[in-house]
C-alpha cells in the first residue's frame, strides 16, 4: 500500500494521524502534504476512517456474563466431557473398525475349507495304505497302534492250521498252504501328534481377537453414549 516516488508511505500517514511522528518527521510530512494533493487527500481519508471507526456505537451486551454456581460447576465439566466424548467416540469407532476387519478376516479364513480339512483327512489314508498293500501289515499295524495284536492274531492261527495239516500230509499231498492274506482290518486311528488349535481352526486366534475387540468396542460405545448423555445434560443446564 506504500506509494512509490515522492508520496508519503501509509505507515507515516497513519502515524501522522495519531501524532506519533517525531518533530522532524512530522514537519517533513506536513511540508510535503501542503504541496501534494494526492497525499493530502489520502491523509484526509485516513482521518475520516479513524473518525468513523471511533464513532461506531458501543453495544450493550445482550446478557449478563456473571458466573453462577451452576455455570462454574458445569463449565469445566463441559470442557472435560467434550474431551472425553471425543476420545471415547474415536476409540469406539477405531475398535469397531478393527472388530469388523478381524471378523471379515476370520470369515475369509473360514471360507477356505478345502485346504485345512483335506490335510487332516489325508493322514488316515496314508496310514491305511500300507495295510491295504498287505506287505507288512502286521508290522505296520503293530507299529502304528496298540491294538495291533488284533491284526497280528491271524498269524498264530495260521500256524495252528499248518500243524493240523501235517497229520494228513502222509496220505495226501499237501496242498500249498494258502498264505493267509492279512485282512485289512480297520486301522485304528493312530495317535496323532498333538494337534495345535491353529491346525484345527486356523481362524481361531483371529476369531478370539475379534471377540475381544468386539467386547471392547461395545464397552467403549456404551461409554460414549453415557458421556454424550452427560454432556447434553450439562449443556442443557449450562
Amino acid at each position, binding site marked *: *500500500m506504500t506509494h512509490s516516488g515522492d508520496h508519503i*508511505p*501509509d*505507515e507515516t*500517514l*497513519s*502515524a501522522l*494521524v*495519531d501524532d*506519533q511522528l517525531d518533530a522532524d518527521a512530522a514537519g517533513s510530512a506536513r511540508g510535503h502534504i501542503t504541496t501534494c494533493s494526492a497525499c493530502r487527500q*489520502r491523509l*484526509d*481519508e*485516513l482521518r*475520516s*476512517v*479513524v*473518525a*468513523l*471507526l*471511533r*464513532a*461506531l*456505537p*458501543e*453495544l*450493550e*451486551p*445482550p*446478557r*449478563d*456474563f*456473571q*458466573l453462577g*454456581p451452576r*455455570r*462454574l460447576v458445569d*463449565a*469445566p465439566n463441559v470442557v472435560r466431557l467434550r474431551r472425553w466424548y471425543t476420545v471415547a467416540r474415536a476409540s469406539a469407532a477405531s475398535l469397531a473398525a478393527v472388530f469388523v476387519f478381524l471378523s471379515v478376516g476370520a470369515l475369509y479364513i473360514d471360507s477356505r475349507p478345502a485346504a485345512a480339512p483335506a490335510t487332516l483327512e489325508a493322514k488316515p489314508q496314508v496310514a491305511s495304505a500300507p495295510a491295504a498293500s498287505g506287505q507288512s501289515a502286521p508290522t505296520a499295524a503293530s507299529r502304528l497302534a496298540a491294538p495291533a495284536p488284533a491284526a497280528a492274531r491271524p498269524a498264530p492261527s495260521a500256524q495252528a492250521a499248518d500243524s493240523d495239516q501235517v497229520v494228513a500230509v502222509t496220505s495226501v499231498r499237501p496242498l500249498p498252504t494258502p498264505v493267509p492274506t492279512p485282512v485289512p482290518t480297520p486301522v485304528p486311528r493312530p495317535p496323532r501328534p498333538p494337534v495345535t488349535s491353529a491346525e484345527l481352526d486356523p481362524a481361531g486366534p483371529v476369531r478370539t481377537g475379534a471377540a475381544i475387540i468386539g467386547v471392547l468396542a461395545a464397552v467403549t460405545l456404551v461409554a460414549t453414549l453415557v458421556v454424550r448423555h452427560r454432556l447434553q445434560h450439562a449443556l442443557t443446564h449450562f
Partner: protein
Amino acid sequence: MLKAAQHGDVAAFNTLVLTYQRQLYNVCYRTLGSPEDAADATQDALLSAFRGLRTFNGPAGGLRAWLLRIAINTCYDQLRRRQRRPADSLDAMCAADPEQDSSAAQRVADPGSGPEQRSLSAETARQIQAAIDCLPPDQRLTVILCDVQGFSYDEAAQVMAVELGTVKSRLSRARAQLRELLVQKGELPASAQRLHERNP
C-alpha cells in the same frame, strides 16, 4: 478483589466481570461481526479467565489486557473455525461487487443502543463493520483496539503481545485497506461529511 477472585471467590470474580464484560463483548462483537458469536466468545473467555486466574501474576492494572488477550484468543479460535467452513466466510463478500456488499453487510447486524448513542446511521455502521470483517484477523484486532476501543499503541501491543512496531505496521495497513473499501462503497467521504456535520 483480584486476590479473592484468584482464591476462587466467585462473587469477587463477578465484580470483575461487571467491570469488563461490556468492553470484552464489544471487542468480540467487532472482531466476529455477530452478536451471538460475540456473546459466546465473551462467556467462554470469562470462564477461561476464571479457571486460569491463578496463573495471572501481573499487576491489577494488567488485568484488563490479560482478559482482552483471552477474549482475542477465543475470537481467533472462532475465526479459525469459520475459515474451515467456507460458507460462513466473509472473504467472498469482500471480493464481491458493491451491490452484493450491501446485502451481505445486512448479515452483520448492528443492534445499536439507542438514537442518543448513535452518531452514525445504522447502515453506515453496518458498512464499516462489513469492511472491518474483510480485514485479516491481525489487522482487524489492531484497528479494533486502537481505533474503535481507543487503546494506545503500547496498550494494544501489550494486549496482543506483539512489538510496538508491529502494531504501527498492522494499524497503517488496516487503515489503508479500510479507506479503499469505504471509498469503493461510497462511504467516503460522504459518511465522514455527515459525521462531521452531526458532531462539528
